[in-house]
């Protein structure tokens, strides 16, 4: 029998899951904890094979709890069971030792599938979570490929600095305040990691930004 621990502060969710698992005799729920601390106590002398972990708990942050469990326990498979579908949270959860990520509005089949997959040593992501990860990948990838390092305004200002204009002159030319130009210039210097306008122009030329 595969032993399961549910950590969720919502009593109904525990009930819902046990209803779902009814009839699957190879699965057995051995405990339900409502808080992170309750779960840590439970886990001091028991090592369930599956832990279903809600990442929003009243006391300990779920991501943090995942790290804490994983520190002393490399045996249990931890599956995030939440209603939060955000790429950052999913990747954090996996990087802190989670084995799978499920959304609470899952189908019965999906839950069973997740348990089987993580038990066979794979990482399981629900379809929706998978979709989010993919969106993040595409978004970052597109930005890396297509977006230039500098904004349009920064390019203009860099060009005018290159032509030898100073702050107030650029401000006059672009109908902006000196303060705004100064801010853009500071941003440029930070982005190219330089300390002076001279170095800025030099680096910009080297990087072919001019």
């Amino acid at each position, binding site marked *: 029998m595969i032993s399961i621990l549910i950590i969720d*502060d*919502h009593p*109904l*969710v525990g*009930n*819902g*899951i046990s*209803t*779902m698992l*009814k*009839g699957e005799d190879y699965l057995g729920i051995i405990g339900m904890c409502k808080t992170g601390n309750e779960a840590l106590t439970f886990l001091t002398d028991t090592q369930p094979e599956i832990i279903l972990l809600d990442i*929003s708990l009243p006391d300990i*942050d779920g*991501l943090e709890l995942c790290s804490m469990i994983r520190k002393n326990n490399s045996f249990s498979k931890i599956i995030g069971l939440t*209603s*939060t*579908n*955000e*790429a*950052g*949270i999913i990747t*954090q959860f996996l990087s802190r030792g989670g084995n799978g990520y499920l959304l*609470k*509005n*899952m*189908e*019965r*089949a999906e839950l069973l599938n997740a348990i089987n997959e993580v038990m066979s040593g794979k990482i399981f992501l629900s379809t929706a979570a998978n979709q*989010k990860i993919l*969106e*993040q990948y*595409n*978004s*970052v990838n*597109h*930005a890396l490929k*297509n*977006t230039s*390092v500098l*904004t*349009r*305004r920064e390019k203009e200002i860099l060009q005018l600095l290159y032509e030898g204009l100073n*702050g*107030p002159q650029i401000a006059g030319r*672009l*109908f*902006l*305040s*000196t*303060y*705004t130009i*100064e*801010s*853009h210039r*500071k*941003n440029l210097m*930070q*982005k190219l990691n330089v300390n002076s306008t001279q170095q800025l122009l030099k680096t910009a030329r080297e990087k072919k930004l001019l």
Partner: protein
Amino acid sequence: MSQCFKSGYRYIIVFFSIILFISSALNAQNVNEDSLLAIIKESKFDTARIDALLLLANYQIKHKRDDSAGMKTLFEAKALSQKNNYQHGIVQCLLTTGNYFRSRNDWTKSMDAYNEIVRFSPQIKVDSLKQKSLMMVYNNLGGIYNFNGDFQNSLGYRLKSLEIVEKLMPENFNNRAIIYLNIASDYRQLKIPLKGLDYLNKTAPFFDKLNSRLKMEYYYEYYENYIKTDSSKTAGEMLGKIKEGLAQFDLSEFQRKDYSLMLSKLSGLYQLTIEKDYDAALQHFDAALTMAKELESNTDITEGLYNIGSVYLKQKNYPQAIPYLQTAYDSSVNHSLKNQSLKIATGLAEAFSANGNTVSANQYLSKALALQNEIYDDEKSKELNFLEAKYQNEKKEKEIVDLTLSNTEQQLAVVKRNRLLLFGGICATALLIILGLLYRSIRQKNIIAEKEKSLKEEQIKFLERQQQVVSLQSMVNGQETERTRIAKDLHDGLGGLFSTIKMQLSTLKHEEKSLETNELFQKSYELVDNASVEVRRIAHNMMPEVLIKLGLMQAIQELCNSINAGKLMSVSMQSYGMEQRLNASTEMMLFRIVQELLNNIIKHAYASEAIIQFNRDGQRLSVTVEDNGRGFNLADNSGKKAGLESVKSRVNFLNGKFSIDSEKEIGTTILMDFLINEG
């Protein structure tokens, strides 16, 4: 409230410190950057270096317009002054700082600097320096209140300043005259012009000794006060005085032009409203317009055009009035002069309706209405900004009073103890032991009492500060807290319920295979699914969990992801120096700001690309949001503005600076700068 100083408002005379103080070998008139740098580098005397640094800072800020260099120099000068306990230097630095921020309309920082002088003043050893700096500070603080339309408080400060100058430097005629003039202006704007005249008359015994510019300002103030007391004839005489002054006084080229513009304007208004000689009024306004063009002052050019138009309007010469007013309107819109736009639009509506063109009249009326709302919003956010500064100022003032009070108490205690000791010395022979005992017990009591007092003071201060923090934060965070609470309720309560229902139905479907073909069941099943997704979406929009758990950067990335997934526009994010998280409420505000800006871009800009950029360097945080959309006219009152107003007020709450520039068909760049006060 700030409406009332729009008319009849000219200069608020502030004391600019440099000219009054430094009388060393350095000549403030001919500043030469190189020679200053040489002094800073080579001089053996720190005081000379400080003076030179101050002049350099002034030069950098006022003439080179290089604010950051100027502030850096100023900072250096202050540090060096403090190191040497060079009190002239410290006061000078603070005054310059206060004046600098005042000129940038940064009231909080300006008042901070001025207040630091007040706090520092008891330590100033040279009495004349102490009094002079206090006099200047009070006058300048008054200036800030006056500019923001709070004439009552402005007057309070000016009277404080006056007390010093009358008591301690009655021979300083120019200073006295400046303060009388400012007080008169406060009284006039408080609608007590008779009092204003009283104060102006106080200069009568030494009026001849004043400098030319002050004399001209006096004529102006006299004119306004006489107009307000219905002594139009005497007011008219003042116009003559101004004309005389222009011919006789030794004025700079710019001043001459500036005052002749003023004279033409005032004379025009005088002819228009009092003498009702419209042809003469037209002549004056024509002259004013020419002068305004020469001075390249957009406000005055617009005003000139409007004034000419309004004379024609008075003459019921609509075909002449309309083109002038229309040019004036365009000019006001081009230069974002909203108050003028409003006035002109109203005039145009009147002209068109009198001319029978109701369509155009209605158009301008609705423009005027929209402008009125916009101005109201602007003024409100300005007012809010000032109120915040005022609140802080009053707080600090109270602290200063508390401090002085406790100082005096301490001094009194010392005096008391000394007397006791003296008495004890005289009667020492017999009563030494008894007195000794008595003294000890008094002292102990004193010490205990003092300890208790200081403990209490600390408690009070702590409570005050706490209250201040709480009231400010609750103002800013109230809305966000509410959102977080609702989001959590939705997420945990309703969301959990829906998830459970779906789990049960899913089990039911598994157990009763026949249900899979039951249409009604399938429909309900789908609906429950939709509902749970919807609840999650709403909660997420209200408060993304990722923002709380992982911070601003990941939350913005997530925002970009979902926009990019929609394929309508691609957004990318860049961040520099953002490794450390900001405090939660700042992150929340910044998230809302970016979210709102992106919403605006999607709704209005028709952009294919946008960039969000965060640059943090120490305390400075700069956020840029740029798109390549169709751009818009900044003066235009489209729906876009509505979105921007709420962004601006959020930026204001964070004490940030907001700047926007937009080019038609090229795109819009928004730059926001914040000062982050945390680790």
